C-alpha cells in the first residue's frame, strides 16, 4: 500500500502550476443521500430501527492518452427506504482498466454498453432507482476505417452484490453508409447496425406439473423437470437516416425461447419493433412514433425478479413527468405479454419580436401518448407451454395509458417568465399498479419566475390534479428563493383529502417540505425537512415504489 501511495503522490505533484495541458487527468466524486427518519402517525411508512439511513458512493477515475482506470465504492448497509432489500451491502462493485489506441479501446473489468437502442442490451447505473447491471469481463471497441464501428464483449452481469452465473456474449457492427459509399447512398446520414446478444446460463432445478391420463383413463399428475435452453440469443437491427428536414429510425429485435419467471416459463419467442419519424424546420417540429413489444424482457438469470439481472431495457413512450403531481400515476413498460405504444408530439418556437413571440420569444408544445395491451388468447398458461398467442399482429387489447399534454412557456416581461401546462390523463391503475380501477384526471400547472435582481430570483409553482377517482384531488404549491447564485431556499406543500392511514381509514394530509441548498462549483449541499408522500420513482420504463417518509434529509455531492 505504501509504495502505491507514494507513486500516486508523485503522479499528482507535477501537475501543480502546469501551463500546458497534461497528458493525464484524475477525476471523481463523492455522493451521499442521508435520511434521519422520524416517527409520523399521519403517514404509512415502513418501520425502521436505524437512526440514520444513507446511500453513499465514491468514484475515482484516471484518464491518460493510452490508459484509463477507475473504481467506485458503495456503502448501502442501511439504504434509504424503498430500495430493494438485496441492495444492502458495501464494497467496490465497479472497477476497470481501459487500454486505448486511436479511437479503439479494450476495457477489462466492469463496463456499460447499449445495443439496438437498449432492446438487446442496456447496462447502466441509476442510483435513484438502485440499478447497476454492469457487465464484468472484456469489451473491445474497434474503428477499422471511417464509417465502421465494431464492438465485441463478454462478461458476467452484476446482480446486486453478486455476479450472475451466466456468461453474456454480445457484439455489434455499425456502418455509416453515407461515409462508406457516398455514391450509392448520398451524403445525408444513413446508418445501419446489426447486434446480437447471447446468454449462457447454467440450468436451474425447475420442475413442472404435467397432467395426463393413465392407461386406464384415470387422470394423473406427475412432476417433470422443466426443459430449459442453456443458451438464449437475441438479434437486433437498427436503421437510421436523416433526409432534411425528415429523420427516421427503425429498431427491430428478436429473442429466442427464454422460459423465465417473468413469462411464466413459457417457450414463446420475443420480438419488438420501434419506428420513429420526425420533421424539424424553422422552429417547428413534429414527431410520431410507434412500438410493439412482445415478451422482450431479457435477463441473465431466468429466476430473477424485481430490478435484478436485466440485460435489456424497453423504455416507456411517455415522457418523464415534468411536474410533481404528474408523477402520481406513472407508466412502466408492460413486458408480458407486451404492449402497443403510440406517441405524437408537436412543438413551435415563436421568435422574439414577432406577433406570437412577443418581445422575448415563446414556445408551445403538444404531446399525446396512447398505450394498449396486446390482444392475446390464453390469459393463463402452464409452465413449459407456448404461453399466450396474439390474435393478430395489429390486435390491441385493453387500454393501459392515454394522455394529452399542452404546455406554454414565455418570457412575458423583462423580469418575468411564465410556464403553464394542462394534461388530461386516462390511467389503468388496476393493471399498472395492481389495485384500483381507471383514473381519469386533469392536471393544471403553472410556474412563474421573477428576476428581482441579478443575484435574487423568485420561483413559484401551483398545481392542481383534479379527479374523482382513487384518492381524489391533489394540490401542490412551492415558493423558491435563489440568492447570490449560490443559495436556494424553498417551502413546498402537497395536500390530499383521502390519504390512507395505518388503521385503514383515510384522512386529509399535508406534506410540507422545507429545503435549503448551497451550490459551489465542486460542492452541492441540500438539507430538507418535512414529509413526502408515497410515490413512484421511474426511469426508462422501470418504476420503484418509494414509501412515504418523514424526517431530515441531506444530499451532498463533491466533484473534482
Amino acid at each position: 500500500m505504501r509504495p502505491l501511495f507514494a507513486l500516486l503522490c508523485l503522479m499528482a505533484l507535477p501537475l501543480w502550476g502546469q501551463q500546458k495541458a497534461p497528458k493525464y487527468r484524475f477525476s471523481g466524486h463523492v455522493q451521499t443521500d442521508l435520511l434521519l427518519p422520524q416517527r409520523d402517525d399521519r403517514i404509512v411508512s415502513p418501520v425502521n430501527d436505524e437512526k440514520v439511513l444513507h446511500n453513499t458512493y465514491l468514484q475515482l477515475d484516471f484518464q491518460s492518452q493510452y490508459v484509463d482506470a477507475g473504481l467506485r465504492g458503495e456503502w448501502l448497509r442501511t439504504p434509504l427506504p424503498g430500495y430493494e432489500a438485496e441492495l444492502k451491502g458495501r464494497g467496490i462493485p465497479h472497477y476497470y482498466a481501459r487500454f486505448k489506441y486511436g479511437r479503439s479501446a479494450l476495457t477489462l473489468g466492469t463496463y456499460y454498453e447499449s445495443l439496438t437502442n437498449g432492446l438487446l442490451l442496456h447496462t447502466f447505473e441509476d442510483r435513484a432507482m438502485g440499478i447497476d447491471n454492469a457487465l464484468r469481463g472484456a469489451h473491445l471497441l474497434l474503428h477499422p476505417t471511417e464509417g465502421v464501428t465494431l464492438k465485441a464483449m463478454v462478461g458476467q452481469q452484476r446482480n446486486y452484490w453478486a455476479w450472475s452465473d451466466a456468461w453474456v456474449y454480445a457484439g455489434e457492427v455499425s456502418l455509416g453508409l453515407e461515409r462508406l459509399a457516398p455514391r450509392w447512398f448520398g451524403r445525408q446520414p444513413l446508418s445501419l447496425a446489426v447486434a446480437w446478444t447471447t446468454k449462457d446460463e447454467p440450468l436451474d432445478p425447475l420442475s413442472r406439473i404435467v397432467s395426463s391420463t393413465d392407461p386406464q383413463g384415470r387422470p394423473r399428475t406427475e412432476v417433470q423437470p422443466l426443459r430449459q435452453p442453456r443458451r438464449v440469443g437475441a438479434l437486433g437491427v437498427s436503421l437510421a437516416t436523416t433526409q432534411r428536414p425528415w429523420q427516421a429510425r427503425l429498431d427491430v429485435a428478436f429473442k429466442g425461447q427464454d422460459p423465465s419467471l417473468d413469462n411464466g416459463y413459457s417457450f414463446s419467442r420475443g420480438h419488438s419493433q420501434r419506428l420513429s419519424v420526425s420533421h424539424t424546420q424553422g422552429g417547428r417540429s413534429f414527431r410520431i412514433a410507434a412500438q410493439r413489444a412482445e415478451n422482450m424482457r431479457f435477463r441473465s438469470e431466468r429466476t430473477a425478479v424485481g430490478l435484478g439481472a436485466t440485460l435489456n431495457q424497453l423504455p416507456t413512450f411517455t415522457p418523464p413527468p415534468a411536474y410533481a403531481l404528474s408523477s402520481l400515476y406513472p407508466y412502466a413498460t408492460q413486458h408480458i405479454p407486451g404492449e402497443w405504444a403510440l406517441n405524437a408530439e408537436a412543438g413551435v418556437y415563436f421568435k422574439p419580436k414577432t406577433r406570437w413571440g412577443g418581445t422575448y420569444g415563446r414556445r408551445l408544445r403538444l404531446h399525446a401518448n396512447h398505450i394498449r395491451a396486446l390482444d392475446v388468447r390464453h390469459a393463463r398458461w402452464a409452465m413449459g407451454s407456448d404461453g399466450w398467442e396474439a390474435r393478430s399482429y395489429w390486435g390491441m387489447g385493453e387500454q393501459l395509458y392515454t394522455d394529452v399534454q399542452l404546455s406554454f412557456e414565455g418570457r412575458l416581461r423583462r423580469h418575468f417568465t411564465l410556464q403553464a401546462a394542462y394534461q388530461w390523463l386516462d390511467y389503468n391503475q388496476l393493471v399498472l399498479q395492481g389495485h384500483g380501477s381507471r383514473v381519469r384526471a386533469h392536471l393544471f400547472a403553472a410556474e412563474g419566475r421573477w428576476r428581482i435582481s441579478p443575484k435574487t430570483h423568485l420561483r413559484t409553482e401551483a398545481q392542481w390534479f383534479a379527479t374523482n377517482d382513487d384518492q381524489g384531488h391533489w394540490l401542490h404549491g412551492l415558493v423558491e428563493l435563489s440568492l447570490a447564485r449560490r443559495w436556494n431556499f424553498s417551502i413546498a406543500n402537497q395536500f390530499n383529502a383521502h390519504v390512507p392511514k395505518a388503521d385503514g381509514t383515510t384522512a386529509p394530509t399535508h406534506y410540507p417540505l422545507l429545503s435549503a441548498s448551497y451550490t459551489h462549483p465542486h460542492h452541492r449541499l441540500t438539507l430538507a425537512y418535512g414529509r413526502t408522500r408515497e410515490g413512484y420513482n421511474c426511469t426508462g420504463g422501470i418504476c420503484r415504489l418509494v414509501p412515504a417518509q418523514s424526517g431530515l434529509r441531506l444530499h451532498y455531492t463533491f466533484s473534482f
Partner: protein
Amino acid sequence: MFKQLFVLLTLLVVGLTAHAQLPNVALSDLQGRAVATDTLHHGGRPLVIAFFATWCKPCLRELDAIAQVYDDWQQTTGVRLVAVSIDEAQHAQAVPAFVEAQGWPFEVLLDPDSAFRRAMGVQQVPHTFVVDPRGRIVHTHTGYVDGGEDDLYQHLLDIPSSVQQ
C-alpha cells in the same frame, strides 16, 4: 490507511482540478453525423460543454438563460457552447424535435449511451465544463441556481487573452 487516502485525495484535488483534457468519444449531432469529442475544442475558442436532459428542468432553465445572452458572450469571448443530451434510447430520438422548438442558438449533440458522460465523470445534470482553447478543463460545476450563468460568463472572461486566439 484512511489518513493516507485523505492526504492523497487532497493532493489530487488541489493539484489537478483545473487541468485536464477532453476524452475521445464518438457522439452524434442532431442530423446523425458523428462528432469526435476530443476535437470539440479545436478552433482556438473557449468551449462550454453543458450536459443536460430534456426532462431536467434546471438544465433547461440554465440553457435558456444562456441562450438569451449567447450572442453577447460570443462577441466578447468568442465562446462556443455545446449542449450534450444524455437522454437515452427512445427519448434520444425525440431530442431533435424538442431542440427545434426550443430555439437555442448553440449546438446540441447526443450521448444516448452515456459514454461521454461517464468519460467526463458526470453523475448528475446539469453539469457544465469550461474548456480553454488549449483543451484544458478550467472550470466545472454541477447544478444550476438562477443567475448562475453570470458566474459562468466570468469564468470565460478569466481565460487569458493570450490563450484565446
